[in-house]
């Protein structure tokens, strides 16, 4: 399989280079036939990358240790699922996945946008091939997954233990790559619009918005899945630690969120053109920066699996992209002039502007906190890390304001607000704010910022639900529809707006769940003898015993904890474990969680006595955690509603 994969990668490199050069030349010369060849090259590249992927999967599954990557991450004892997903368990495989996803996006752009007239799509395709070329070079040289190994080893070490311990590892990385790589498409359209001289028209932004929404939804799902993985595997009962690599995935999501809002201002009011182009470019650069941080291991992180010279390639690429694009944007700044103007501060565009300022500030907070250790080491020669309190304290006010604006934005019309309507629209949700405040006080929260955040969530949630209620009620009166039909048609009549509101509800659920699970968290750590009980909040658990088990790829030691009801009956059993993999001298913690909509009971085995008579366990009661994952699903649902908007309607709306 090695030669097949290697051959596909190398021919793919050549085909990519051809497409990248041929497409712009064809456009300049007006040669339709050459353009067709260029597009064929784009599709051929997808075919070749698919072949390389298939070759790698076959090599992994058949334990072909003559392939370098398989010798690095494979093992005969690893179960099939984890063997397949070890494809993205290390550097070379994940670059291969990146290349394949990028090839898919490039082909999809050509096929889906084939009816778009003008030179926008060809130039965008050429830009995507330019990015593809970078990854093809990585695959050919510094990140070659197919380098031959001789003599062929009989077996390998298996994937990194952390990556073969939970099924979410099959979900989180592919979603992340779909999101990261998807941000290349808006970037390619932005550059393409400038190259094609179409940047002064706003129509290219409509294409960009759809693609941005796709990538944004994947990236959002990936972030939530990553939080869930961290919660289920790392054994500390948390889901977010401001780890550099978590931050790296959050930043492009924040700038993409800013774009999804500010693009509406450009569409409706002809403002923020230059800003939007910069957001698109910035988002792309942040995805590359994120990959650089993940893959170079330059900042110490739980994700720092690999080190090597590949960092220099990424830095060079980032520098090239930044310099090249900024020069292009500067050259086009005349065409990116604002044509509209603000009529009144009490308008929806003001809220969008504030939303963008806050999201940018949030991104800057995270960016500086993430890169500060690098700067400090380079400038002052000291090794430092930035503590979590920095991120928490700095971001909480920004987040709170954003949540509040979520309640204000939908209430305000474009341009200016007529007298009188403002008061009722802004005052009614205040009742929701009060209810949320009381809920937070009942939970035991006393911190001023946390209480403010809860009130803002209540405010925004009421305001958003009110939009749905008022709209449905109006339809009911006008058309005599039943409630469900009225709601469905309301959403269908403007799927983009109501999809957005659904996503808002998702974000508000996530915010509530994060606030409640952090504020209402009760944690106990203690050593239990067999038969001892431990009370955690309203829960009671009893240690039944410690067990050992041999599995094909690992040894497992676990504690059996019985969850007791008030009258002492066993209602559930938790079995937190430690998994010992032969490749590592440290066991992988494997907590066990009893999850309900009201809250989770989380148990982790900290240590145990060798004879099995006692175990030290950490048991955590966390309210509402499951709503983080559910709320994430609602955010994605909103994006899907927005994406499946009928094309015709989307065009009318823009006009």
């Amino acid at each position, binding site marked *: 399989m090695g030669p097949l994969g290697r051959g596909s990668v190398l021919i793919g490199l050549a085909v990519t280079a051809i497409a990248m050069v041929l497409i712009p030349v064809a456009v300049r010369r007006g040669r339709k036939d050459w353009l067709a060849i260029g597009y064929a090259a784009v599709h051929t590249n997808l075919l070749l990358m698919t072949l390389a992927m298939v070759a790698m999967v076959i090599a992994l599954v058949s334990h072909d240790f003559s392939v370098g990557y398989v010798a690095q991450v494979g093992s005969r004892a690893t179960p099939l699922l984890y063997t397949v997903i070890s494809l993205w368990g290390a550097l070379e495989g994940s670059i291969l996945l990146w290349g394949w996803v990028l090839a898919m996006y490039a082909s999809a752009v050509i096929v889906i946008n084939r009816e778009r007239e003008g030179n926008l799509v060809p130039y965008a395709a050429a830009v995507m091939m330019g990015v593809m070329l970078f990854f093809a070079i990585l695959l050919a040289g510094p990140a070659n997954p197919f380098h031959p190994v001789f003599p062929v080893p009989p077996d390998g070490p298996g994937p990194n233990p952390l990556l073969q311990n939970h099924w979410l590892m099959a979900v989180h990385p592919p979603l992340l790559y779909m999101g990261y790589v998807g941000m290349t498409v808006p970037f390619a359209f932005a550059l393409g619009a400038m190259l094609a001289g179409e940047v002064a028209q706003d129509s290219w932004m409509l294409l960009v918005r759809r693609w941005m929404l796709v990538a944004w939804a994947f990236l959002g799902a990936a972030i939530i899945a990553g939080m869930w993985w961290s919660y289920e595997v790392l054994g500390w009962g948390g889901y977010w630690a401001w780890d550099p690599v978590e931050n790296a995935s959050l930043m492009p999501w924040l700038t993409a969120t800013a774009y999804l809002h500010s693009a509406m201002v450009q569409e409706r009011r002809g403002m923020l053109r230059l800003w939007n182009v910069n957001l698109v470019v910035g988002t792309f650069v942040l995805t590359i920066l994120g990959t650089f941080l993940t893959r170079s291991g330059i900042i110490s992180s739980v994700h720092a699996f690999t080190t090597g010279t590949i960092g220099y390639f990424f830095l060079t690429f980032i520098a090239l992209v930044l310099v090249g694009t900024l020069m292009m944007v500067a050259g086009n700044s005349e065409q990116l002039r604002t044509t509209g103007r603000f009529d009144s501060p009490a308008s929806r565009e003001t809220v969008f502007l504030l939303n963008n300022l806050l999201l940018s500030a949030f991104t800057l907070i995270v960016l500086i906190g993430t890169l500060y250790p690098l700067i400090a080491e380079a400038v002052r020669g000291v090794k430092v890390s930035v503590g979590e309190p920095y991120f928490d304290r700095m971001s909480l006010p920004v987040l709170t304001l954003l949540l509040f604006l979520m309640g204000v934005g939908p209430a305000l019309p474009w341009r200016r607000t007529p007298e009188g309507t403002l008061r009722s629209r802004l005052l009614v949700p205040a009742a929701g704010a009060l209810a949320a405040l009381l809920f937070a006080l009942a939970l035991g929260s006393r911190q001023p910022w946390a209480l403010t955040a809860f009130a803002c969530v209540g405010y925004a949630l009421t305001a958003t639900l009110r939009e749905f209620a008022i709209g449905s009620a109006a339809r009911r009166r006008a058309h005599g529809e039943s409630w469900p039909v009225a709601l469905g048609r309301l959403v269908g009549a403007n799927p983009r707006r109501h999809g957005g509101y659904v996503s808002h509800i998702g974000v508000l659920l996530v915010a509530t769940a994060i606030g409640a699970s952090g504020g209402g968290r009760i944690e106990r750590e203690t050593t239990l003898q067999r038969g001892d009980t431990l009370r955690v909040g309203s829960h009671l658990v009893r240690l039944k015993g410690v067990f050992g088990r041999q599995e094909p790829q690992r040894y497992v030691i676990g504690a059996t904890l019985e969850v007791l009801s008030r009258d002492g009956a066993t209602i559930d059993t938790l079995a937190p474990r430690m998994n010992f993999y032969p490749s590592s*001298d440290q066991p992988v913690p494997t907590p066990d969680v009893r999850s309900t909509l009201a809250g989770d009971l989380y148990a982790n085995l900290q240590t145990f006595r060798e004879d099995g008579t006692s175990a030290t366990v950490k048991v955590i009661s966390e309210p509402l955690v499951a709503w983080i994952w559910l709320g994430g699903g609602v955010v994605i649902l909103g994006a899907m509603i927005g994406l499946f908007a009928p094309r015709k309607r989307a065009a009318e709306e823009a006009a």
Partner: protein
Amino acid sequence: MTPVKSRRTWGIAGVVVIAAAFGWLLFGGLNENVVYFLTPAELLAKGTEGVDVPVRLGGQVKPGSVQWDERTLDLRFTVTDGSGDVAVHSTGAPPQMFRDGMGVVVEGRYGADGLFRSSALMVKHSNEYRAPQAGERPQDMYKTLFKETPK
């Protein structure tokens, strides 16, 4: 000045003020929360400057220094880098494979009494995972547990 010009001047002034305030907050927040990564010798060399500031202390567990009370979860050990020793106190269970000589990072604050109070204890993984050697493998260390349970 025309009204448009004066509005623009005010606008620019406003942006500058907001940006400056934000930058001031940002770097204030950073300075308060920077955690220094130090070895025991570096921490001791700082003298009083190293007292009561957040530090990540990295080194090895000094052989024979680990004391753990499984009832109170009181954990004491010494972190060494060969040229300096720092006594560490924390509450909680040590990692299962906590061994003499292993690399650790403890986060916390160094007290004026010479005791480092740790709030988090991490086992330091080198970049590549290290395979356990004979005698360190779970099947050798926890024989009774594996024998007790029928396969």
